[in-house]
């Protein structure tokens, strides 16, 4: 490693590597999209939509945690806010088309995200996690108190309505392709964000914040923007979820939900693009399969065990470990 190397060589290798990487990425993405397109004919569409919504939630969370290094312990607030806003608007205004309802939910979550960000962004490490936790507890308190959420009974009978006033979303397949389209759009958006110069700065902040500051970046502004994008996407996930299930409940606002999204991201592989998607799929499936089977009564301890095991043995998550394996053996 210490021998002198020609900088041009490095540049070329990097370029070649990047090209190969891009081709691989494209291939992987094509396969994934193909699978997702046929999936509802093989698997149960509502269940797939649930996975997509949580995957989006985890992707949003990962943008902040995995790429910027900020652990928010309050992301449930955005999921719930998106869901409640969309649910409330769609139930109250029958003229409102579904996509506008979802847009409104996302917007409110975005504004809330901005407020959270402004209040918390100057705090470091554990203090940041705790401020976001505290803020989300206040949001939870608000939803418990507000009559429009239906309290612990939840908000029910949210109409799925029609997309653009044309396509009925009552049909599970239509609904699925809509959710899938939104999901892919957001995934591509996050991909772009991460690989953009803005994303590079986020990574620089994650690796070494003081250095990023000394390089002249306005670190706070970058962090706020990352937080807001993350909150917006989390809100969008909540909005979609409320339309898919036609309900919104306090479970989404509870701090356990903030813990669950951490688990999803961690298990899948934080700081990788695909990780949160894999993690969400894994956790939702484990939870679902276990709650049906003979281990029905043991879901919580098993999830706890997965948490422990992941932190101890697979800190890079499923995707991260596979990447490492591939790099070591095939790279």
């Amino acid at each position, binding site marked *: 490693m210490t021998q002198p190397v020609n900088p041009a060589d490095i540049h070329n290798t990097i370029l070649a590597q990047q090209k190969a990487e891009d081709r691989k990425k494209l291939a992987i993405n094509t396969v994934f999209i193909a699978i997702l397109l046929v999936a509802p004919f093989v698997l149960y569409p509502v269940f797939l939509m649930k996975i997509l919504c949580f995957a989006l939630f985890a992707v949003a969370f990962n943008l902040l945690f995995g790429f910027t290094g900020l652990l928010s312990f309050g992301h449930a607030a955005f999921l719930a806010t998106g869901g409640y806003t969309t649910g409330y608007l769609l139930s109250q205004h029958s003229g409102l088309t579904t996509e506008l309802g979802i847009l409104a939910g996302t917007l409110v979550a975005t504004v809330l995200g901005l407020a959270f960000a402004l209040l918390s962004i100057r705090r470091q490490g*554990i203090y940041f996690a705790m401020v976001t936790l*505290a803020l989300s507890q206040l949001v939870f308190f608000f939803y418990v108190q507000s009559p429009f959420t239906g309290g612990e009974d939840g908000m029910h009978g949210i109409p799925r309505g029609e997309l653009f006033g044309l396509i009925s979303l009552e049909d599970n397949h239509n609904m699925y392709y809509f959710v899938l389209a939104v999901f892919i759009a957001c995934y591509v958006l996050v991909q772009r964000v991460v690989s953009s110069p803005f994303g590079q700065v986020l990574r620089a902040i994650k690796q070494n914040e003081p250095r990023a500051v000394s390089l002249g970046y306005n670190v706070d502004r970058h962090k706020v923007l990352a937080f807001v994008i993350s909150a917006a996407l989390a809100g969008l996930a909540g909005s979609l979820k409320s339309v898919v299930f036609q309900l919104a409940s306090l479970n989404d606002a509870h701090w356990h939900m903030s813990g669950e999204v951490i688990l999803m991201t961690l298990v899948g592989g934080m700081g990788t693009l695909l990780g949160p998607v894999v993690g969400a799929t894994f956790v939702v499936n484990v939870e679902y399969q276990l709650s049906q089977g003979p281990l029905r009564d043991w879901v919580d301890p098993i999830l*706890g065990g997965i948490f422990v095991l992941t932190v101890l043995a697979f800190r890079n998550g499923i995707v991260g470990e596979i990447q490492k394996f591939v790099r070591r053996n095939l790279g």
Partner: protein
Amino acid sequence: MTMIFGVPLAVLSGQLLIGVINGAFYALLSLGLAVIFGLLKIINFAHGAMYMLGAMATVILFDALGVNYWVALFLAPLLVGVFGMLVEYFLLRRIAGQDHIYSLLLTFGIALLVQGVLTNLYGVSGLRYAMPDMFKGGINLGFMFLPYYRAWVIGVALLVCFGTWFMIEKTKLGAYLRAGTEDAQLMQGFGVNVPLLVSLTYGFGVMLAAFAGVLAAPIYSVTPVMGSHILIVVFAVVVIGGMGSIGGAIITGVLMGVIEGLTKTFYPPASSAVIFLVMVVVLMVRPTGLFGKEA
């Protein structure tokens, strides 16, 4: 009758006293967290579970072996402390030196695991534990009826808090501890067994939680999930006090008990949210908490 904001003075004094009692209890719980974070930099999300284990152990020891309250007061924390040391030795040690966040995630998983297993074994309705005979009844203070047991809780909790603070901040042992965790290599060089010191410190921190659990057994419903709710409240207390500040945890604990008590009098529905409000405000003004040192 003297009234303050529409509340009779007598009632208000009662509420303040109750606030101090709960505050002493919070102080005891946050103290353990602060010791563990301050000395080991571990964010112990299993603290609520350890508190629960202390209470469960008290009940189970009594039911199975007839161990009485006074013995349980020592035995239960000891058992939980040993359990904590095992957790430290087999699990937490493996992530030493990593980002603090991993310790949070790991202990969160441990808490889920322990709670889930006990829920399946003991159910969630709660286990019965009778008040020790000598604590039955109470005294009339004029403005309120004070059960003897609550008086005992406040006394013993504050005593243990003060003792711990004194030991860590003022004695030689405490100095070793602080030095050992700050510069492990140096202390190792002096012949101090640092890994053991770390295990013991974690064990001691969770012992404090378990001790609070024993105190809780006769007055609160003892269930496997009793720790999960109080956990984030206690975390809030520690954060407001300044993570790792031992004196800060104690003072803030009592303070939060009083603030919560006043909220319970003037606007009860907000009493579970008020601590978080205080936390947000305090961190706005002082980024590292009331008594925290700049990071």
